[in-house]
C-alpha cells in the first residue's frame, strides 16, 4: 500500500528526504483522530475539558477516565491512544513523587513538563520503540501561579493560554481565540469550555459524555473534577446557546 511516506516511515530512526520522521507524524495523526480535548488557562486557575464519545450503551457512565490526577496540584488530560496516555500519566506521577521525596516540595510545572517531554522524546529515538500516540494537556497550579502545558508525541512541551487537540481542534482553537482568558475566572471558563465542546461536537452528531476538571483558588488549588452541579449548569447553558444559534441560522 503506497502512502505518503513510503519507504521512509518504517522506523522512528529513519529521516525522510524532506527532513521528517514519519513515525512521529503518524503518532501525531493518532492524536488528531481522537475526540477533542481542550485546556483554558484563566486568571485564577486552569480548566481541562475532554469529550468522550460513548462507544457502547453497555459502558458504565464515568468509566474510561481521560483526565487524571498526578499530584494534588497537577492534573493531566489525555488525547489520543488512551493506554499510551496512561503510561505517560504514570510516569508523570513517578516524577512528581520522586521530586517531592528529594526536594520536599511539590514539583513545579515547568520541571514536570520538561521531564515528561524528555521521556516522550526518548521513544522517538530508538528503532525498537514506537512513539507514544498521546498528547498530554497538563494543568498545574504551583507557587508560580496557574499554567497549562501540552506535551505532544514528538516530545516537545509548550506552554499555552488555551489550546485544543483532537478531531475538533481547529474549530475549538478558533473559538478559544475569541475568549478573553486573562479576565475570566475558572467558573466562567468551565461554562465556555463546555459550550465549545458542544459546538465542536454538534457537527458530528454522536452521543458523548463530558469530563471537565479544574484547578483554581476555588478548588483549594487542588486538581479535581468540576462539581456536578456546576457541570450540569454549564451543560444546560451550552445546550441553550446552541439552540439559540440554530434558531438564528
Amino acid at each position, binding site marked *: 500500500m503506497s502512502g505518503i511516506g513510503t519507504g521512509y516511515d518504517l522506523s522512528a530512526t529513519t529521516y525522510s528526504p524532506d527532513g521528517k520522521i514519519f513515525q512521529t507524524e503518524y503518532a501525531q495523526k493518532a492524536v488528531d483522530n481522537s475526540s477533542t480535548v481542550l485546556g483554558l488557562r484563566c486568571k485564577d486557575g486552569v480548566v481541562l475539558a475532554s469529550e468522550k464519545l460513548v462507544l457502547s450503551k453497555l459502558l458504565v457512565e464515568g468509566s474510561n477516565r481521560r483526565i*487524571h*490526577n*498526578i*499530584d*494534588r496540584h497537577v492534573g493531566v488530560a489525555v488525547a489520543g491512544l488512551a493506554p499510551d496516555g496512561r503510561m505517560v500519566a504514570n510516569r508523570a506521577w513517578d516524577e512528581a*513523587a520522586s521530586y*517531592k*521525596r528529594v526536594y520536599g516540595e511539590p514539583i513545579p510545572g515547568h520541571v514536570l513538563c520538561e521531564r515528561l517531554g524528555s521521556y516522550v522524546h526518548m521513544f522517538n529515538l530508538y528503532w525498537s520503540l514506537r512513539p507514544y500516540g498521546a498528547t498530554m494537556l497538563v494543568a498545574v497550579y504551583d507557587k508560580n501561579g496557574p499554567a497549562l502545558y501540552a506535551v505532544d508525541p514528538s516530545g516537545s512541551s509548550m506552554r499555552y493560554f488555551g489550546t485544543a487537540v483532537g478531531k475538533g481542534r481547529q474549530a475549538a482553537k478558533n473559538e478559544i481565540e475569541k475568549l478573553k482568558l486573562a479576565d475570566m475566572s475558572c467558573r466562567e471558563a468551565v461554562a465556555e469550555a463546555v459550550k465549545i465542546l458542544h459546538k465542536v461536537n454538534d457537527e458530528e452528531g454522536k452521543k458523548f459524555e463530558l469530563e471537565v476538571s479544574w484547578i483554581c483558588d476555588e478548588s483549594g488549588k*487542588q486538581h479535581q473534577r468540576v462539581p456536578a452541579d456546576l457541570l450540569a449548569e454549564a451543560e444546560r447553558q451550552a445546550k441553550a446557546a446552541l439552540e439559540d444559534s440554530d434558531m438564528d441560522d
Partner: protein
Amino acid sequence: MLPRPTTHSKALGPGVAGPELAVATSAILDRPPQPSAHLPLSGAQPCFVDPSALADPRQHTKYPYVTGTSVLAIKYKDGVLIGCDTLGAYGSTKRYKSTQRLYQVNSKCVVAAGGEISDFQHIQTLLDELTTDDYRTDDGIELTPQEIYSYLCRVMYNRRNKFDPLWNSLVVGGVQEEGGPFLGMVGMIGTHYTDSHVTTGFANQLARPLFRERQRDDMEEEEALKLMYDSLKVCYYRDKVSMNKFQIAKVTKEGGVSISEPFALDMRWDYKLFAAPTQWAVGAW
C-alpha cells in the same frame, strides 16, 4: 554486687582482678555520651583518626533528642477525642513550645505521637505519600483508620527489626464506616492494640485510672471533654516535662476532623497540701 572475674596472671598473682578484666557493663556502654574536653567520643587518643568514623556510616537510633510527652485518647458517642500538649522538649529543657503533635491524615483519621518529633515528621511524610496516592486514584475511597493503624504497625515493627526504631508512641484515632469510632496505639517496637481509651507515656499511669472510672463508649461530648480536660490537668500537674498548652482533635462521622487551637487549662498551685505537704502527715516533725 556481682562477683567480678579474677585474673590468673602470674605477674599479678592469684585472686586479683587485673585491668584487662575491667569490662564496662551495658549500663555504661549504652548511656548517652558524656562530654569530655580534648578527647574524641570513641576513646582514641587525641590527634588520631577516630575509628568510628571509618566504620559503617549508617547510624542506628539509640536515643531520642527532641521529644513529645503523653497523648490521651478516648472514644465517645459521636467519635473520638485525642488530646496532647504542644511541647517539644530537649531533654529537660522545654525547648519548642508550639509543636503540633496531632496530624490529620484524611477526613476521618488523626495520628498523634509522643517521643522523637523528627521521627514523627518522617511518619507524617509517609502518611502524606499514602493519602496523595489515594487522591491520585480519585475513586472516592480513602484509607480507613484501621488501615492506617495496620500500616503503621508494620512500619514500626520492621524498623525495630533493623535495630533502628522510629522512637515514637503513636495513637491512631478516627471513625469507620461500619463499626463506629476507632482508637489504636502503636509503640516503637511494634506493640499495638485497640481499645476504648488509649494513652502513651506518663498518661498510662496518670490518666488511665480516670479513664477506667469515667469513660464509656456512649458518653456525650460534654462529658467526654470534661474527662479529657481533667486528665490533661493531671498529666500537667504530675509530669515534669509537660506544659499548660494543649490541643484536642475531635473526629466524628458528621463533622470530620477538627483540631482545636492551642488552649490552656486553669491550674491551681495553692492547694494547702502542696504548700505544706508533710504538715498533717503521721510522724512529721
